[in-house]
Structure formats: C-alpha cells, structure tokens
C-alpha cells in the first residue's frame, strides 16, 4: 500500500538513475555483448560462423535442460533429475530407435513424463522437499539408464540423416531448443497456466488462497520438466549420434547456474525464460573462450565456480535490496 501512495523512487532521481533503470533488466544483454567483444580480442577464431555454430550447438542440449529447470525454479522448486532423465532418454532411443523411430521417441518421452510425474507426486502428495525428491528420482533414472545399457550405444547414421540438416548457424538441436524456448515464453506470458506459475513461485500460500490450483500446476510443471529433459536426450542423440548412460553428470547444476546468470530468481516467482536462455549462451560462451584460449582444463572448473559465486551473490544482493526497499 505504501508503494501506491508514494511515487516510485526512480522518478525523483536524475538522469543517472534513468540510465540505471534502462539498463536494469537488460544488463544480461550488455554482459553478452561485452563477453563477445572480449572473446574476439582473445581469439581471432571466435567471431567466425563455425564457432558460433559450435557454441549454439553445444548450448542446445543444456539450453533445453535449462528450459525444464527454469519452469521448476520458477515455481520455487529445483529439479536435480533433469540430466539423468536426459541420459535415460538418450539410451532408450538409441536402443529402440533403430527398430522403430516413432516407438523410440514415444518411449523416451513417456519415460520422461513418468519420472516427472513421480517428482511431482513426491513433492506435492509426498511432501518431500523438491531437492530431495528429484535427487531420489535422479538415482532412479540413472539406475534405469544403466539397466537399459551399460555402455554407450551408437545410433546408425541413416537413422539420424534427416535430423542432421542445418540452417545457416542453426543445427536441428538448436532449432528444437529455440522453438521450445519461444513456446514456453508465450505460455508463461500469455496463458493463465503461465501466470499461475509466477503466482505460485511468488507466494505459494497466497496463490492457493487466490484459487490457483497449486497442486495440479506443480505436478504439471514437473511432468513438463521430465518431458523436456527427455527431449534434451533426443537432441543429444542427434548431436552425438549415440545414447550414453553416464552422460551429463552435473548438468542439472549447470542448468541452474545458467538460468540464474540469466536473471531467474533462485527462489522462484521471477524471471524471463528468454533472458535465461541468454544466460545459457553466456555460460557456454565462457566455456568456449576458455577452450579457444587453451586454458588448462583444470582451471576451467575454478573459473566456473567463481562465475557461479559472483553471479549468485549479485542476484542475492539485488533480491535483498529490493525486499528492503518495499518493506
């Protein structure tokens, strides 16, 4: 009520805060631009079509996982099972796909949906904290992936030929990723379902009291996350031409880091999925720069850790400042 009675603080300040408010919300784009500028100094190869295609192609699978993670983080949860479900989906398709591609796709997505449902039911009816519920499902998915196959399964070239097409710098996995991101962006901004997710993440109790079907929305989000993770598995098969049971250890956390870089609030209720995807590109670009600069891979984890700490502390400080401002 206070904020309605008083004019917004930014109006009473000068040009400096107007610049700040123009930048605020779009810092992420600025960061990407600066990063690209920096990278082109570090390596002459960076600004080439091939390298951009590489970055996007490498970002695509993580990007789809980040879409899944974004939805769950938005409603105030976490999904640690995304990468394990991706691995399971990749081996299911690699095993069944050669006999019947539609069956392979259906089985992969079905497994993702089923495990997502398990997450959702555990979190809602089971009252298990999301981190632990999805950790349990991560173990289940990873276990099943190894039951399907102990070793990587190569997928015949002919089977993937139609999916190997590229459009300029966009490979098929990249196009799948961008399509998913755009669809979700529309879903989140323009549908009742999407707005409900922001309400749940902002304050679950108020959302419930306001008549939002919280439980069914939560379950739907976890199912969606499972299906998207399975799609990431299919994109991975297209990219690497194989199904790998142990692939992607730790990617669930990379996905969280990437979307937080992209401005998603770690505790739910805030965030823009397209900016989160820019976060993914930034995350991948940093890795790309370190590779191009032939940085000792041992330092790469250290750099990654530092980036995560800086980004998250900035995001936490912003959140604290904004709560202090309205209190």
């Amino acid at each position, binding site marked *: 009520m206070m904020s309605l009675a008083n004019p917004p603080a930014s109006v009473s300040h000068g040009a400096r805060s107007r610049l700040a408010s123009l930048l605020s919300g779009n810092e992420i784009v600025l960061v990407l631009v600066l990063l690209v500028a920096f990278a082109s100094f570090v390596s002459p190869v960076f600004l080439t079509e091939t390298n951009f295609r590489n970055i996007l192609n490498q970002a695509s699978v993580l990007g789809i996982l980040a879409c899944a993670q974004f939805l769950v983080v938005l409603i105030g949860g976490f999904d640690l099972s995304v990468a394990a479900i991706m691995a399971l989906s990749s081996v299911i398709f690699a095993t069944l796909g050669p006999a019947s591609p539609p069956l392979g796709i259906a089985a992969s997505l079905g497994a993702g949906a089923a495990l997502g449902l*398990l997450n959702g039911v*555990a979190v809602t009816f*089971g*009252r*298990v*904290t999301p*981190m*632990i*519920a999805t*950790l*349990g*499902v*991560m*173990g*289940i998915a*990873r*276990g*099943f992936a*190894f*039951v399907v196959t*102990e070793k990587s399964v190569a997928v015949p070239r002919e089977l993937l030929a139609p999916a190997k097409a590229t459009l300029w710098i966009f490979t098929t996995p990249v196009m799948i990723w961008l399509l998913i991101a755009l669809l979700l962006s529309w879903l989140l901004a323009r549908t009742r379902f999407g707005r409900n997710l922001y309400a749940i993440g902002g304050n679950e109790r108020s959302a419930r009291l306001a008549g939002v079907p919280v439980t069914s929305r939560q379950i739907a989000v976890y199912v969606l996350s499972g299906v998207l993770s399975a799609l990431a598995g299919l994109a991975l098969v297209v990219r690497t031409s194989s199904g790998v049971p142990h692939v992607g250890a730790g990617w669930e*956390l990379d996905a*969280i880091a990437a979307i937080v870089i992209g401005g998603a609030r*770690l505790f739910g209720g805030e965030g823009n999925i397209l900016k989160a995807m820019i976060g993914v590109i930034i995350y991948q670009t940093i890795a790309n720069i370190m590779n191009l600069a032939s940085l000792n*891979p*041992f*330092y*790469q*984890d*250290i750099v*990654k*850790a*530092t980036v*995560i*700490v800086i980004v*998250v*502390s900035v995001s*936490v*400080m912003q959140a*604290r400042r904004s709560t202090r401002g309205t209190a």
Partner: protein
Amino acid sequence: MSVKDHLASRRFWQDNGTIVVLAAFVVFAAVVSQGVFLRPSNLATILYQASIIGVLVLGQALVVIAGGIDLSVVAILILSAVVMGGAGSEQQATMTLGGLPYLGFWPAIVAGFAVSALAGLVNGLMVTRLHIPAFITTLATALLLGGIILLVTGGSPIYYPDPFFLAFGESRLLGLPAPVFVFAGVAVAFWWLVNQTTFGKTLYAVGGNERASHYSGISVTRVRLVAFTLSGLLAGLAGFLFLSRTGYVSYASGGDLLMATLAALVVGGVSLAGGIGGTKHAVSGVLLLASLSNFMNIMLISPHIQNAVNGVVILVAVSIYSHMNAARA
C-alpha cells in the same frame, strides 16, 4: 487419553522409526541370505563401510540441523585424502604430476585437516557474509576444490601413500576394523556436542527458526560458521579413513558418496528443513543404508538397480517423515 497416546506413539516413531526398521531389516536380511548377512565378518564389513560415510554424515548433520546443506563434503574428503597421501609420502610426491610437494608424514596429516577446516570455514563465510544459499555456495566450493585437486595432482591418482594408512585400515581391535572405532568416537563426540553443550542448543534453535534465534540474542553467524567448519574438518577425517581403506584416491573417487550422505540423513529422519534429528537418527540412517547395500551385494543385485532402489528408499522415507513432522507441527 487416546489423543495423548496417539501423540506419544507418533513421537515414538519419529524418534525410533528408523531403528525399528533397521532391526526388522537385519532379521529379514539374515533370513533371506540364510545367515550369510549375520556372519561376524560380514557385520564387520558393514560397519567398515558405514564408518567412512558415517563420519561424513555426522559432519553434514551439523550443517543440516542448523538449516543448511553442505554439497562440498565429498570434494573436501578427496582433497584431504590427496594432501595426506600425496604430500605425506616421498615416493608418491615424486610420482604426482601436479605441484604437490613432499611435506613429511605428520605435516601432511596436519595440512589435510587444515585445508578441510579452511574449506568449511570458507563455505561458512560465503553463506553468512555474502548470503549465498548454502547449496549454491557449497556446490561452487565443490567445483573449486575439484579444480584444485586436479591442479595439485596433475590428474594422476594417489596410489602410494605412507604405509601407515593401509596398516591403520587393516588393524583390528576386538575383531573390528580401527575405522569403526573412529566412527564410534565421532558419534559420541557429536552426541555430546549437540545434546550437552550450549552450542548444540543454539544449533537446533537456528535450524528451527533463524529469525527467532537472532532476536533471542543467538549469534546465527557464529553458529553457522562453526557448523560449516566442523563439517569440513569431519570430511577431512573421512578422507583419512577413505585413504586407509584402499590406499588409493583420485580426483574421480567418491562418485555416489554425496548422494549417499544425504540419503542416510533423510532416511534416518534428520529433516533437511533444519532443527530436527540427532545422533540416533544420523547413525541409524547410515547403518540402515549400509546394511541395505551390503544385502543387495550379497544377493548379487546389480549396482545400477541398487542406485534405483536407493532412490525409491529416499522418496519413501522422506515422505513418511515429512508427514509425521507436519502432523507434529
């Protein structure tokens, strides 16, 4: 009367549920394995397996009771083992590709504990000063330590530590491996710390309600700092035990350990929301999971299926405990 009885029994199950399940499981495993499970040598194996993870879990429990989480314990364990094994043996120091120097046996042991406590302290400082959520902080620490481990070892494993380690791991007292006594000692110290000291009371207070604790004059920052530092120190001790077991450690060791520590806590009934659970819970969770994994090994169940079974066990256990805790609140 009946309501009181009902509450009393719920309380009983919250406090002793896992112990009852553990007892029932031991009987079940003994029958199904036709006695193999109960052989003294097998029980000693279970306790040995439980002791490394148990020390890790008790450290993690301090942080969790205070309302945090420490995802860096396994990385700290490996760093500690690498320092103790790599810098404490002259032969190993000449074989390690990275920059790890030879320090001498005792200095290396001290250094191992020191880096572990330091890592824990850094976690605590980041959580309390920068206000970064514990799981992100400790995740970043784990990544960072992973990089440092690769750097100091050059990626080569430690397989020639001082002979003391293997000798310690193989030594027995009353038929039990020495590490089991270390675990028991840590458990007693843990019990004393959380039940008999002011620090223990403040630990539960902070985990139960941080704001109320702050307003009652408890230094939340200090409590969290101590909890994270002790967790790091115990992870360092677990590193010592880990190295004693096989005399081998590499940057890739300890894959499923982190998940196992969290699983043991929640299966034992320590709430990840903080403020609930103690020695009995943590130790019974560790023993139950160690028994389950040993039983599945005896029954020749594939380790991958075991992974899946553990996942289901976590989901079921947490769901039961959180329904009980919600009813109590």
